[in-house]
């Protein structure tokens, strides 16, 4: 009898431990928010929170696609270059097509269409080559990073292309719903992207296939799952989200600049990892990534409010990423 009770108790303890480890990031976020609410002036104001959202949505949107890619056991480093390229393409379309007599609105929409086409094409190529040749996705997307950075630089001649967009384009990155102190549009896009990817990963066969492919591609293949298609869908998703991010970024400053988004890939990956997604593939949640994005945003904002310089901020962020990975390794051990 006692043994049975003891076994039940230890089992429950393990369950509680796993639950805590699974939700440690939420707990940390709450502690952080409470702490900053008392410690930092102006933290708990509507304006500040809208500011956090606006500042972090541009990268955050991409993080959901990156989550999908990492769960599938892959990685896409090229997204930073895609952000810059998207702005340049639309700016060029607006400038050159109107010069050829096309209506400005139409020219802008053609530009956006071209960006999306590029996103689908690049995602498809990534998936196709990775699957067919077994090339490491790290290297493959590193190649794309350089190619598209170079391409965007050439297309733009190395300078920002400013003041070409129609008025409404500014709304994408700078607009707010509900007046000048309302909710920023990028924040709404962030939420939409979250809901869509969360739904795909949790409620569709594509989501199940993505987890399976990341968990063990050979078992997935022998279960009849179309591994190549699954990888391509993940790669295309992150590329499309990078384009959307690029459009918002360009809209915010009303210019297409090829260096926009440079280095973002690492910030995005950091947010995904802090959100608990495993780099080995097959495990992770889209919700975790949302929390990870907000967490990184809040901590950056808090440190700025506390007048901590940007260099120290990097170090603090590094420590957070390190602890997050440490925790997820520990979690994997506890579960096994």
């Amino acid at each position: 009898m006692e043994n049975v009770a003891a076994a039940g108790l230890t089992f429950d303890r393990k369950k509680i431990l796993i639950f805590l480890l699974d939700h440690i990031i939420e707990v940390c976020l709450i502690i952080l928010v409470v702490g900053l609410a008392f410690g930092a002036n102006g933290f708990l104001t509507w304006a500040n929170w809208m500011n956090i959202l606006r500042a972090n949505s541009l990268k955050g949107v991409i993080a959901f696609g990156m989550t999908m890619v990492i769960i599938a056991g892959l990685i896409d480093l090229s997204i930073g270059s895609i952000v810059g390229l998207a702005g340049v393409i639309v700016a060029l379309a607006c400038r050159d097509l109107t010069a050829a007599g096309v209506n400005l609105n139409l020219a802008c929409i053609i530009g956006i269409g071209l960006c999306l086409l590029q996103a689908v094409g690049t995602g498809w190529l990534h998936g196709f080559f990775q699957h067919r040749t077994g090339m490491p996705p790290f290297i493959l997307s590193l190649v794309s990073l350089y190619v598209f950075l170079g391409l965007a630089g050439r297309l733009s001649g190395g300078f920002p292309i400013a003041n070409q967009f129609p008025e409404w384009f500014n709304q994408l990155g700078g607009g707010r719903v509900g007046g000048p102190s309302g909710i920023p549009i990028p924040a709404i896009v962030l939420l939409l992207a979250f809901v869509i990817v969360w739904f795909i990963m949790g409620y569709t066969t594509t989501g199940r296939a993505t987890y399976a492919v990341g968990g063990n591609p050979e078992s997935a293949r022998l279960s009849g799952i179309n591994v190549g298609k699954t990888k391509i869908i993940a790669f295309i998703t992150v590329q499309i989200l990078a384009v959307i991010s690029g459009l918002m970024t360009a809209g915010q400053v009303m210019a297409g600049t090829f260096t926009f988004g440079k280095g973002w890939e690492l910030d995005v990956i950091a947010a995904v990892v802090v959100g608990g997604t495993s780099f080995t593939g097959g495990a992770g949640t889209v919700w975790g990534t949302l929390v990870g994005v907000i967490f990184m945003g809040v901590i950056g904002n808090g440190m700025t409010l506390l007048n901590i310089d940007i260099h120290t901020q990097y170090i603090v962020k590094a420590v957070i990423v390190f602890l997050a990975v440490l925790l997820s390794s520990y979690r994997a051990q506890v579960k096994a």
Partner: protein
Amino acid sequence: MSVLQIRTEHIIKEYPGTRALDDVSICFDSGRVHALVGKNGSGKSTLVKIFAGAIKPTSGEFYLNDEKLHFNSTSDAYAQGIVSVFQEMSLVPGLSVAENIFLGRLPKKHNAVDWRKTYQMAGLLLQQMKVNIDPYEQVSRLSMWQMQVVEITKALSFNPKVIMLDEPTSALAQNEVQNLFDAVRALRDQGVAVIYITHKLQELPQIADTVSVLRDGKLVGTVQMKEVNHKDIIGMMFGEVNIQSRPTDIKVQDELIMEIKALSRHGWYQDINFKLKRGEVLGIAGMLGSGRTELLRGIFGADPVDGGEVVIEGKTYKSANPTKMVEAGLGLTPENRKIQGLILAHSIRDNLCYASMNITADGWLENKRKRNSFAERQVKELDIKTSSVDAPCESLSGGNQQKVVVGNWLNTSPKIMLYDEPSRGIDVSAKQQIFEIMWAQARKGVSTIFVSTELEELLEVCHRILIMRHGQIVDEVNPDEISVNELYEICMRGD
């Protein structure tokens, strides 16, 4: 040269539920190749692991030249000059032969590696082995037998008294085997006691001086190779076998469900033709490397084929892939369930529903309730022992993991099931349960192809048995009219 002996006295090794070694007293002499044979699970590897210091016997003693041995770890065994060469290659492909031989203990001069001495010593050792391998050569450029010889040379560099070789020829081509044998004989002639584990009986007359046969953990006997033949050894290996009979109510239907026409994959199997009827349990027997696994994978579309076709219910498939074959009603439980059959970190529920993903979903939308009920049904029907379907698959025992692999397929309501070594590494009762599942499915009209190294299993389970040798189907037998010994003989013949 004085004769050295390694011997055991009344060794017993018990595992929960089984006795892997039962009162084994055996003696190995130096300067001889002493072969150890027996079926899977006969206790060969357990004995070798005890000599290697990897496990301790439950009771009994073992001696090296009357000196009693106590090993707490494998390094203790090395210190006594007992080394083993295992099937899995432990060489680093990117390094040279000499570096591999002295890996972790390269000779040094003034704290720097003494490369000249390294290559000199390696060259000397290779000369002793009477092989022509360049110590400067990168290991990845060697052929399989050369790698195996380098592995043995590495063992030789420890100046061993006893060398244990575990199935050294299993990965070698026919012509390479002779080269390896030359090396083994060179080893023997230097006065090393060679313990040679194999399942290939045709090798014994060429390489073995003495043969010991183990069966069910007991030593059946030790004989001089000169004095016996194949048949004697097979008799010792199998003894009197009681084949359990399959249920009589499973009838093969007349309707043809699948036909394999001239299926070939270069280097693996050629011109395979056979027919499968509805409700039939068809066995494929053959030794390791006969092409059985590759054939199953070819039929399932897991590997490309060079020619031929698979016809399922009148529909022809020429270059298939698993996705297409699953739609056609096929299921495959692969040879290695952990690497090919399961996603170990994922839950039992998920693993039970990957193959049936499109069936449990409503279109592209997941139906969690339906998925749950599919998973629960298999847990119940297959008697999978777990506290919860949410538990990760890695928490299950081998037998239960295998049942999850099978359940994953049963959820697709397959028409044809391909089983590749389904009973490997699982206990007797789980094995019996797997057979019961096959029969239950056969009653429902599901056809089965069953590949196994365990010939008794094939005789027990199948309606008909095809025999594969060197990538070809060489014979077809009726399990009711043949004994295990005869079946074994046909599988080995001509090798």
